[in-house]
Structure formats: structure tokens, C-alpha cells
């Protein structure tokens, strides 16, 4: 009994040590709302605006932003899904190939103001892949980038236009974004490596 109690206590302590919550549900909601407002402000409205989320949590965030935009501006902003696997720069190096999923963009992106949405901005390589992929799909008027968390350590000259929260991290740490749509709960956690 006693041993079990201390064991549980230790486990909780380990949990606390290794995972720190950066954003809770309300924090995520505030960040999404603020990003939506900034998008409207920066683009002077929502005309020609489309949102394209990166698989998979970027898509959920894009849908949430679209909902906010509807509230703010009353407009139905189209949301597309982008899978950048075929554009990754590490294919054939990592052993087993990552699963390729569908890109689902049911509208033309030509001459559109495209806001790319992803959960975490880190090295910037995924965004590079997304930019190349978008250019193959059409010729947008401009592309902007929205992320929930920017954790630094860029390896390419890429910068987000909208950031939910800047989080200084070490390379050993991991940032986990949990969204109700995928994970059943909202939250951003930092996990020590």
C-alpha cells in the first residue's frame, strides 16, 4: 500500500517535471480568436481569403480560425487540406516512407490570399514543402503563415505572419499540440527530451 502510494507520487512528480502545459483550452481559444482578428486586420477584410491547413492539426486550427472569421466578418472562408509528404526533403533518408495522404483543396488558389495554417513552427522545412506544393497547385496572390506555437530553431529563412504563442525551447524538448478534434482534449504541452 505504502509503496504503491509513493510510486504514484513519484509518477506524478515525473509527469510534472517532464510535461509543462504552455496553453490550456482557453489559451488556445484566445490565440485562435486573436489570429482571426489579425488576419482580418492585415488583409483589410476577408475578400479572396482562403485557409489551407497542413495535415493534420493545422487543418483543425484552420477550421477554428474560419469559424472565428465567420463571427467577425460574416463570410464563409473556404478551408483546404494540404499533405506535404511528397514535397518533404528527407524522403528516402528516414527509412520507411511516411504515409502519403490526400491533399483536398476543392477551390482554385489562383489570385487568392492564402493563409497557411500549422500547429507548430520549428525548423521551417515543412513550410518550405508546403510553399512548393502550393506553387504547383496554382498561383496565389500572396501566401501568409499562421501558427499556434513558434518554438524557434529555424533552419530556413521563414517567419510566421500570425503566432499564437512564442515559446523558447531547447532542441531536446518537444512541443505537443493536442486538439479536441484529434486528441479529445485541447492543450499545448512541452515535453523534456
Amino acid at each position, binding site marked *: 500500500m505504502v509503496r504503491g502510494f509513493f510510486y504514484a507520487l513519484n509518477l506524478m512528480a515525473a509527469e510534472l517535471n517532464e510535461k509543462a502545459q504552455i496553453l490550456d483550452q482557453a489559451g488556445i481559444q484566445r490565440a485562435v480568436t486573436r489570429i482571426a482578428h489579425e488576419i482580418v486586420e492585415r488583409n483589410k477584410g476577408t475578400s479572396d481569403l482562403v485557409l489551407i491547413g497542413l495535415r493534420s492539426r493545422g487543418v483543425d486550427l484552420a477550421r477554428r480560425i474560419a469559424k472565428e472569421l465567420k463571427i467577425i466578418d460574416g463570410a464563409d472562408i473556404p478551408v483546404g487540406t494540404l499533405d506535404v509528404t511528397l514535397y518533404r526533403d528527407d*524522403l528516402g533518408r528516414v527509412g520507411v*516512407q511516411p504515409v502519403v*495522404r490526400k*491533399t483536398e483543396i476543392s477551390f482554385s488558389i489562383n489570385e487568392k490570399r492564402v493563409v497557411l495554417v500549422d500547429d507548430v513552427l520549428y525548423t521551417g522545412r515543412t513550410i518550405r514543402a508546403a510553399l512548393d506544393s502550393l506553387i504547383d497547385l496554382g498561383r496565389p496572390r500572396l501566401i501568409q503563415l499562421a501558427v499556434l506555437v513558434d518554438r524557434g530553431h529555424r533552419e530556413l529563412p521563414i517567419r510566421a505572419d500570425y503566432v499564437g504563442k512564442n515559446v523558447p525551447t531547447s532542441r531536446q524538448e518537444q512541443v505537443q499540440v493536442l486538439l479536441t478534434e484529434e486528441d479529445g482534449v485541447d492543450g499545448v504541452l512541452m515535453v523534456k527530451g
Partner: protein
Amino acid sequence: MGLTRKDLLRMQELTADEIRLILDTAESMKQVAGRDIKKVPALRGKTLINLFYEASTRTRMSFEIAGKWLSADVINVSTSSSSVAKGESLKDTGLTLQAMHPDIVVLRHPASGAAEFLAKQLAASVINAGDGAHEHPTQALLDLFTIREKKGRLEGLKAAIVGDIAHSRVARSNIHGMRKVGMEVRVAGPRTMLPCFIDRLGVEVFTDLERAIADVDIIMMLRLQIERQQAGLFPSLREYSRLFGLTLPRLKGAKSDVLIMHPGPINRGVEIAPEVADGPYSLILNQVENGVAVRMALLYLLAGAPQAG
């Protein structure tokens, strides 16, 4: 979940999960074909060699397009099968190829087992694009993809494969593939073209076409090699087509939503009547289109596979 094998040599060795992964990946690849810019950089810097010892327009083109849409460098080597006996041995060809460091070699060869043989010589991935009467796995995969696309599922479906089963690599690969994904398979043809113990592969055997195609969801007609007449396997084209040709009146006995497939090239009026080949249930052209997507999926999945030393 990924493909961890070096080569794709036969359907017999694939698991149901591997088949599903290939078909799912092919679905994503099919989107690339629908775009204005039909090219993704996934295989940039990879070299694909199409080594064809038999004439084949559609399979070679299909692999070539698949490779190019994935940005691989594609080289086509065609050798007539007659020069196999006189010229360089397949082993030496393999060693020569190896010296050029290809990443993937696609082999079509008239001898059963040739792909397995080449795979042992090469560090590169080898894709069997048809070896003798043994297997033609990419054809079976594109057939499964086409069926799934039309029917929304594979499990529980019933298919009849009709024609020269004995000499057909398409039949063998489809039997293995369909059985693995939970389909029921029948084979039908003249007794002279049904190989012994074929039932041990888990298929029902018919020599009566009408009985074979009753209540199946898919009818897969095989190309009749006209030369088989000289080998005494059937008396005449006329009699073959009378007994085993798929015609509209015959089709009346089948399900109303039955799908008709054929690996091509078709002998119009022999194994399949023109009005059936061009009819509403014919998937023959879908098969060709899907061939590219399935081969893109395979090239992509094998490009990450560990290379042998």
C-alpha cells in the same frame, strides 16, 4: 506502417495490410494526375530503369509516367527476348545495371522467376512487371484499386477470372491478391488452360462460363494468346469465342451491376465482344488510368526501402 521490403516480386508475399497501404497511397497519388502540374518532387535524384525483355506498351509507359510524375530520372531499356539466349546473361545485365547505381529497376521478362533472380543480383529495389507465367503484381494491385474505387470495398466481393489461367501471370497475381483481401475467386476456362491443383490456391474452378459468371461482382477476362491454338489448347478462335467469349447475351445471366475488367490488350470479338468492352460496366480504361497511380505509390513506397548491401 510502411513498406519495409526491398523488392516487389509477387502478390503471394504481400500481407493484406501492405496491399491496403499501397492502395491508400495510390489514392493520394491519383490526385497528382488530376492537377495541372502533374509532378511532385518525391523521387528527385532517384533513378528508375525500365528493363523490358518483352514488348509491352502500356506497362512500360505506365511505369515511365509514374516515375516522371514523381520526378525520378527514368531510363528505358528494351531488349527483345530472342537476344536473351544469345547475348548477355541476365546475371551480367544485373551486374552492369548495378554499376550504374539505379534506385529502382522494373523488370518485364518472359521467364518465370526472372525478377526474383535479378533482385538477388541488385542492391536496387526490383519491381516485377511480369515474369513468365508467374506473377504480375502491379497489374493485380491496379485491378484491386479499380475494384475498390468502384465498389467502395473489396472484402466479400466475388470475382470470376476467365480464360487461359495456366499461362496467365495476371490470373496468379490476382488470385493471391483477391484472396488476401477477403474476396471470393472463381477461375473459368477450357480444361486445357486450367493448371493442375489450381483449386489449392483457394479458388473455385469452372469450365462453364455462364455458371462461372452468375452472381459475381467482377468478371475479369484474360487475353487469349492466339499461338495457343498451335499448342493444341483450343481448336479454333471461333470455338473459343463461342464457349468462352464474353458477349452481351451471356452477360444477361450476370448481376446487373457486374463490372468487367481486362488487363489488355484486348482481342475484340475473341474473348470479349466489342459492345461489352466498350459498355457501361467496362472498367478497362479505368484500369489503365489507375495503373499510373498504383505504380507511383509503389515507386514512392519502395524508394524508402532499405537497400541491400
